[in-house]
């Protein structure tokens, strides 16, 4: 998501390294770089102007501590100011109380319906809520079908009345939820333009007739400078309590994230990071800035792993590793765990220094992993536990069975051997991390 922005900013910072101290002359070049980086990321023009002025003033005014180099000082200022732009603290969704009702609104195609599914799934898992959806998009063809399919997949009930009056449907839906002991209601609404008075007043009516805990604007992270008009347009009519940024798994530089809080004071609460129904993350300004500046985000990685990886299986694997009898059967199990973590490129981006190693823009074809899996699955149980027995004729059979080539089978076996060697070194204590 923000990698390209981060790269540009890091380039600007690199230029400072050569200077003994920050002066009026040398900083103007650097600030020009910073400014271009932010504008290319679609950060709002006004925000860019204020931000670059503040950073410049602070950098010039800063008493450089003897222990810090000018580039370190500059990075610190950049980091603090970026965090300020993003709103410093994480602001969670309102989940207290017996019944919580949220309404999701936004332009056409911003991803409201998919986000409803993700949100229901996420809140059920995290807060043990019993969610229900209300289908109030009565305009777009098949919008109700879409929500029903998502509900079916997640096993979440969808209240719908076909193409009726959205305000009435929402009211009756909430009554239904109360009678049936649901404690989380998510209302899906039709996409609309913020300048469409008729449709905007429909949302106001829902807002007035139902006690909403959250009114959330869903924003496409690829939006350009018009984002501010849209956000202000919706906020004027509805008093938004938060936003969810979608499609952050694209290669957008996501400048809208840097603009929305600063200009409107509306917090970003969650971000959408894949098309899958578990592709939603909390938005934490401090961690996000870490990612932008290439410092990685180990906390998110650990949390992600903890929520997905089967603890028992992991313990078993660790035990085997320490004994040194790790075989391809175990490797297969780990591959499956890794697959659960989602797209690998998203995981790599969370590693500190990923961008320095050129790993941040890496594109991993999930088919590559599938091929490795196919190769192992084409082995017999005996072969998986004793890969040493795999010789020429077995290799040909495995390659045929998995639709790959003998070279690919060889490559996998070599990698396995290397891994095993590394593990032996770890066990004997002679192992040093390569970084």
């Amino acid at each position, binding site marked *: 998501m923000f990698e390209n922005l981060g790269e540009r900013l890091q380039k600007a910072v690199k230029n400072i390294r050569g200077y003994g101290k920050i002066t009026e002359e040398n900083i103007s070049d650097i600030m020009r770089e910073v400014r271009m980086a932010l504008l290319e990321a679609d950060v709002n023009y006004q925000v860019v102007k204020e931000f670059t002025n503040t950073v410049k003033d602070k950098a010039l005014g800063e008493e450089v501590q003897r222990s810090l180099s000018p580039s370190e000082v500059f990075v610190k200022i950049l980091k603090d100011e970026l965090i300020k732009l993003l709103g410093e603290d994480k602001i969670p969704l309102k989940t207290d109380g017996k019944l919580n009702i949220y309404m999701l609104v936004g332009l056409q195609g911003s991803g409201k319906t998919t986000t409803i599914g993700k949100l229901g799934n996420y809140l059920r898992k995290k807060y043990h809520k019993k969610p229900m959806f209300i289908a109030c998009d009565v305009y777009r063809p098949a919008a109700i079908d879409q929500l029903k399919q998502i509900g079916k997949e997640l096993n979440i009930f969808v209240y719908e009345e076909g193409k009726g009056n959205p305000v009435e449907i929402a009211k009756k839906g909430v009554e239904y939820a109360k009678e049936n002991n649901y404690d989380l209601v998510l209302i899906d609404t039709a996409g609309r333009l913020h300048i469409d008075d008729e449709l905007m007043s429909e949302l106001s009516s829902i807002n007035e007739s139902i006690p909403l805990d959250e009114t959330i604007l869903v924003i496409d992270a690829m939006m350009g400078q018009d984002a501010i008009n*849209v956000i202000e347009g919706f906020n004027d009519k509805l008093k938004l309590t938060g936003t969810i940024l979608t499609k952050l798994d694209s290669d957008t530089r996501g400048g809208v994230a840097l603009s929305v809080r600063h200009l409107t004071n509306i917090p970003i609460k969650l971000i959408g990071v894949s098309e899958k129904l578990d592709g939603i993350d909390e938005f934490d300004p401090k961690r996000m800035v870490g990612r932008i500046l290439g410092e990685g985000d180990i906390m998110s990685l650990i949390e992600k792993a903890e929520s997905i990886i089967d603890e028992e299986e992991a313990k078993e694997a660790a035990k085997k590793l320490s004994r040194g009898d790790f075989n391809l059967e175990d490797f297969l199990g780990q591959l499956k765990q890794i697959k659960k973590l989602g797209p690998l490129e998203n995981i790599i981006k969370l590693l500190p220094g990923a961008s320095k190693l050129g790993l941040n823009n890496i594109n991993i074809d999930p088919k590559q992993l599938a091929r490795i899996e196919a190769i192992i699955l084409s082995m017999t149980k005996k072969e998986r536990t004793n890969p040493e027995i795999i010789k020429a004729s077995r290799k040909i059979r495995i390659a045929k069975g998995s639709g790959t080539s003998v070279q690919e089978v060889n490559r996998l076996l070599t990698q396995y051997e290397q891994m095993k060697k590394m593990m032996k070194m770890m066990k004997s204590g002679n192992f040093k991390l390569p970084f």
Partner: protein
Amino acid sequence: MGLFNKFKDIFKKSNIDDIKVYDQGLSKTRKTFFDRLNVLNSKYKKLTDEYFEELENILIMADIGVNTVMDFMDRLRDRVKKENITDTSMLNEIIIDELFIIYVDEGVISSKLNYNDNGPTVILFVGVNGVGKTTTIAKIAHQMISEGKKVLLIAGDTFRAGAVEQIIEWGNKIGAKVASGKIDADPSSVIYDGLKVALDEEYDCVLIDTAGRLQNKVNLMNELAKINKVIGNIIPDAPHETMLVIDATTGQNGISQAKSFKEATNVTGIVLTKLDGTAKGGIVLGIKEAVNIPVKYIGLGEKVDDLKPFDIEKYIYGLFKEMVE
């Protein structure tokens, strides 16, 4: 400045109704954009650094690519110096002139579709998620049907929940047959079957929907390249047009979208949707400059007839109307 006069003449001659459509659709767009230029002109009578900075601001707010704007500003400053311009009011014409040049760039641009004379004309629609591919297909199909053509829609989005239902519902509304497969079916096979139907039943036009995909997803872009190949295997030279659908609210990412989709398929034109909001869709100027793909249609609303052929002259006219008159 000859271009500018030619430009004015074009409007005198062209169909007034046509201009009106652009005019209404872009009125909100124009309002913000133009208000700001006017304020700028009354604020600065003389060309100062502040004037240029604010002009740059206005162009960037229109989402015209950052690099495009920076080059544009350089050229503008050059011309101001060379032609000894001191008054801001004189600069308006040059601004329009230069914007026009960015888009046209000495090429001949037509928004006409490339029809196939022997057999069905196949048009493939691609783009990121939520830009309005399916709605655009319905609108173009509606136009073709009203021209007396026999149109088949292929539901190539087998991934998103409700996508097949959506295109079928549109098909019923506009009276077009829809070829569809099961959800989660391989899109290439659905498209293969659909094209067979088109050949057997002698359809004039085939419009193929595809699932929205982010341009940085390697596997999904490979899938698209495969779809493109399958189409060409059944009907040589097809697809005859590949439309990249772009949302007018898109920022700088539009350029990345255009580049990546052009690598996977042979994108021949852009449909710029949702221009009825406040977004200006200026990124199409950046795209034209960087990747040389012209805009063929613009979407101005949710109704089936809210689609118009793109015309750069009218587009810029729509943005600058008050200034020209």
